[in-house]
């Protein structure tokens, strides 16, 4: 079977096949006769907002001076599901285009016990810091946000509003939205990976700069689109004499306000067929 078919050359003298076309190589893409089910655009209007104050990652109050207890976690929320209509799982991915609004919502509660109230006000602050980020598409199941030289670096979208820095210098909101993940199971590093399965509490890939607001999964039966949410909880205690001042910070992201096209492309054969 090595000499059937046809191929075209790139015109370079003495060249071997250089990949113009070869009749033995399958095209990666949808099939025209299937096109209505395997090449679809879903326009996502994101309206869901999160509330930072109700974030609860199970922390307990610090028990000693200068103790910090904190937790950072990603969550993957299913936001859309539709059957793809194939009898087995096709190869596929989504191209995300448009603009993502990334909202970082923060909440601080400072309180004290004992001693002089002047050493620690009892107050609560809420804040939101938003940025609109254009999206760069590439062949992967997650959305990639672009760097813009005149805009935000989405990797370091920090809460800079002054109310987050008016008191304790140790108070912070690391990276605003996302902490660099620390583990990855199987697969290859960088941004090649995908987030399979429906586990809402997942570990993303440790590729720097990959901060996907949305991702898609092609299951055996459905096309599923997820929104990615990051939650943070940070609790500190500072003693001054008999006064104990506690800072409890909670943060959560959402993408309310985003207008994104997710164009899903399904291939009529499976990866298993190729290997």
């Amino acid at each position, binding site marked *: 079977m090595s000499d059937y078919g046809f191929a075209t050359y790139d015109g370079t003298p003495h060249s071997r096949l250089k990949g113009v076309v070869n009749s033995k*190589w399958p095209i990666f893409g949808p099939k*025209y006769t299937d096109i209505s089910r395997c090449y679809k655009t*879903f326009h996502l209007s994101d309206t869901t907002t999160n509330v930072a104050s109700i974030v609860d990652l199970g922390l307990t109050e610090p028990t000693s001076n200068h103790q910090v207890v904190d937790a950072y976690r990603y969550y993957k929320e299913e936001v859309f599901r539709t059957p793809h209509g194939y009898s087995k799982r096709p190869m596929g991915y989504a191209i995300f285009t448009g603009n993502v609004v990334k909202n970082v919502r923060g909440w601080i509660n400072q309180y004290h016990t004992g001693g002089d109230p002047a050493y620690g006000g009892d107050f609560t602050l809420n804040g939101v810091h938003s940025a609109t980020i254009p999206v760069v598409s*590439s062949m992967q199941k997650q959305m990639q946000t672009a760097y813009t030289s005149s805009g935000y670096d989405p990797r370091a979208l920090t809460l800079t509003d002054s109310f987050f820095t008016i008191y304790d210098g140790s108070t912070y909101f690391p990276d605003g939205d996302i902490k660099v993940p620390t583990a990855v199971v*199987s697969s290859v590093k960088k941004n090649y990976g995908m987030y399979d399965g429906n586990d809402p509490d997942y570990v993303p890939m440790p590729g720097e*700069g990959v901060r996907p607001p949305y991702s898609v999964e092609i299951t055996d039966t459905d096309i599923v689109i997820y929104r990615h949410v990051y939650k943070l909880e940070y609790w500190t205690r500072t003693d001054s004499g008999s006064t104990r001042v506690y800072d409890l910070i909670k943060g959560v992201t959402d993408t309310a306000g985003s207008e994104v096209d997710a164009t899903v492309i399904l291939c009529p054969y499976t990866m298993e067929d190729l290997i």
Partner: protein
Amino acid sequence: MAVLDFSKVNKKNTKNRGDYGVRVARPGFDAGYCAQNQLLFNSNWPILQICKVVDLGDVGILDEDTGMIGPVDGVEYKYYDQTNDEWIDELPAGMNRTGYVYMRDISIGRQYLYYSVDAKGYTNNDYTRRVWEFRYKKIRHGLGYVPFFFMSEEVSAVQNHVVLTSIDISKDVDYPYTEAALPMLNPTTDYGIKSASAFGKNVPGLSSNMFSKLVQCVKKTGSSQWDINIDGVHTEKVLCWSPFSKAADAKAGVISNFEAFTFSAYNCPFLTSDLATTWYFTKGDAIDNKMFDDGPYYSRDIVVRLLALAETSFYSDAMAYTNLYQAARLYDDASLVILRSPMVSPEYEEVII
């Protein structure tokens, strides 16, 4: 203020493929004379064909908390003696480990694919000798060019396979197709060409009934980079590309329909962006000049960058990409690859989430 005509940029490296090859017209049109958008298939189009799928096998489990990497079958080791500037086969005696980088990266050259697992740094007791250890898998693909590749994880639930395509990312090419996406063709079932594939009966070969992404362009830094000069002030050199003929179009629909990929290239297949970032090895370092096989080797980079400088700049109206990490040290072989769909999807659904 400088004004750059991006229509000329687009055509700068247009690949002239002449008039040979295969053309299949849409029903009712003459394949010999009809326009591009009246064709169902043209072998001149740089379509995305799958040439080969490479199995990486067991690639282990990375746990960055514990610093352990699970078993990886079939790995090889290579050592670079930085002090003496030479590759050696074994770690010299009396060396102490000083550093560790998890790479787990794919580098592809004209004949081989390297899967770099990790790298370790060693010094002797008095720090007069430094040796780097690289752990990797080397797999021959034998295509004879540097293929655009993607991972099986990106398009399926199958892990640890590398999909190699027909597109050579080491050569500049612009595809002179229409600028606006076209309406989808009507489905045809009994028309056109279809061939068997090299992948068995479940996978069709070249078929004019398959809808392919087109490679809009491959841009290399050596020949397609442009200085950004804003009012005479030099900023940096970037790969530059735009599919738009009018600035207003670019503003309206920045990168709709397009997919962007960046690749870094080094002569040494272990010198991926991870290693360069961590240990500051760069293109042209001694280690990079120790050519492996037939480099250079290309690895996917993580970040593409959308340049939108001052509103008054022409760059606010067009797209340019640069590798973030390599922005200050561009080299000849880095590539930008843009894919596009030539036709818009026929199905469109509004979803409030």
